[in-house]
């Protein structure tokens, strides 16, 4: 029974993913990428695919603080959404991947995630008649590290969302698309809340690295970007996450420590209340924001308005 449910889940995920791809032509890299994204063939024990943690129904994130890889191995950071990455400049919480192609391959080899050396992954694909034929059709080549990354990245680039109520309000100039609370929330986002200082851009991220006060060198000791650059100023800095579809990608932050958007807004309102001994915190958050209960509600309404219509229940 468990195996039946597992197979059904894989089939449904594959169908959902295929439905998001623009062109169903098998000559399309993204279609091949969609198949690979949902296929546990790329994990050591054939149980974990990219879609195991990047679940379509949660905007290609998941619902755990950290996720389980092969053999139930726990990861160390929260699964970020795989949507809206096309405009990104670096990938992963610490920005260690410069391209989406580089990012796409890293979890395959990561012992905490899919734990499969790339050469072994490629051997599997080459021995699989379906993939051997697909790669030949799309790339005129057998599976290689380069074209594997290209295919998955091509699929990830199709995962763009631009039809939220907020988008309808601003792009289509439909003032009835959002409520008064959303409009007030947008003002707070840009002014008293200071959110726009980090969350500016088409995907509500300026793609910078910021320390928002979730590093204290003790129980919160993931130093983030510092591991990549070695620069002291980067201690505790993480890539600012996109806010698109944020209402359905709980829990939040690099370690999934905040469970709801209420907790997130409460945290930003006064970070010292939650983490009194933060180290190297960004000066933007030095002082409490002083948001009233109503302002917090309005800000939350605005954040909810960033949910794409495809996720509307």
């Amino acid at each position, binding site marked *: 029974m468990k195996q039946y449910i597992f197979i059904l889940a894989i089939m449904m995920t594959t169908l959902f993913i295929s439905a998001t791809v623009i062109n169903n032509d098998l000559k399309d890299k993204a279609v091949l990428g969609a198949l690979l994204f949902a296929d546990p063939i790329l994990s050591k024990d054939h149980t974990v695919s990219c879609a195991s943690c990047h679940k379509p129904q949660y905007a290609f994130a998941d619902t755990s603080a950290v996720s389980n890889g092969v053999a139930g191995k726990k990861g160390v950071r929260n699964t970020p959404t795989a949507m809206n990455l*096309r*405009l990104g400049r670096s990938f992963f919480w610490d920005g260690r991947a410069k391209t989406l192609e580089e990012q796409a391959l890293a979890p395959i080899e990561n012992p905490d995630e899919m734990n499969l050396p790339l050469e072994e992954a490629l051997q599997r694909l080459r021995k699989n008649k379906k993939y051997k034929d697909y790669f030949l059709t799309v790339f005129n080549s057998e599976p290689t590290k380069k074209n594997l990354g290209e295919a998955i990245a091509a699929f990830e680039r199709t995962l*763009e969302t*631009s039809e939220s109520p*907020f*988008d309808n309000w*601003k*792009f289509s*100039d439909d003032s009835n698309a959002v409520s008064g609370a959303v409009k007030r929330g947008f003002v707070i986002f*840009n002014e008293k809340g200071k959110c*726009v*200082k980090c969350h*500016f*851009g*088409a*995907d509500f991220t300026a793609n910078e690295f910021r320390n928002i006060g979730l590093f204290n060198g003790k129980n919160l000791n993931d130093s983030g970007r510092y591991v990549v650059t070695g620069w002291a100023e980067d201690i505790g800095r993480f890539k600012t996450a996109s806010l*698109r579809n944020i209402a359905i990608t709980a829990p939040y932050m690099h370690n999934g420590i905040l469970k709801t958007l209420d907790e997130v807004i409460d945290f930003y309102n006064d970070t010292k209340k939650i983490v009194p001994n933060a180290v190297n915190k960004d000066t933007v958050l030095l002082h409490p924001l002083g948001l009233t209960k109503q302002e917090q509600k309005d800000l939350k309404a605005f954040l909810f308005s960033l949910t794409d219509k495809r996720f509307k229940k």
Partner: protein
Amino acid sequence: MAILFSITTKDTLTGRWESKPSEQGNIIGVVFKADNSFEGYVNKKPFASGTYTFNPVDSIFSFVDNGCDGRRGIYKIMLYSNSDSLRFEPLSDSCEARKSGMLRLVMGRVK
């Protein structure tokens, strides 16, 4: 004179403008509204809201948006192809990221 100015201002910029797709396939656009507000977007995703003024006599375009900590950008707008295409020439903008983006921008009127 004021009425003529406002009519000319409204007609010159008011409306939707978009760039051709970049190498990566990205399209940047802006909607200039008659109330002197504007919405900038990339691939139909809004990213900047602000207010502007435009003097059609000297083509000076001045604006603030919700990025760049409220710093004002002042540009000269070069209109061509029967005023159906435009590009920006920076005159004063201390927001380097915005300036470098706008320098590369060529947009056509969306009809």
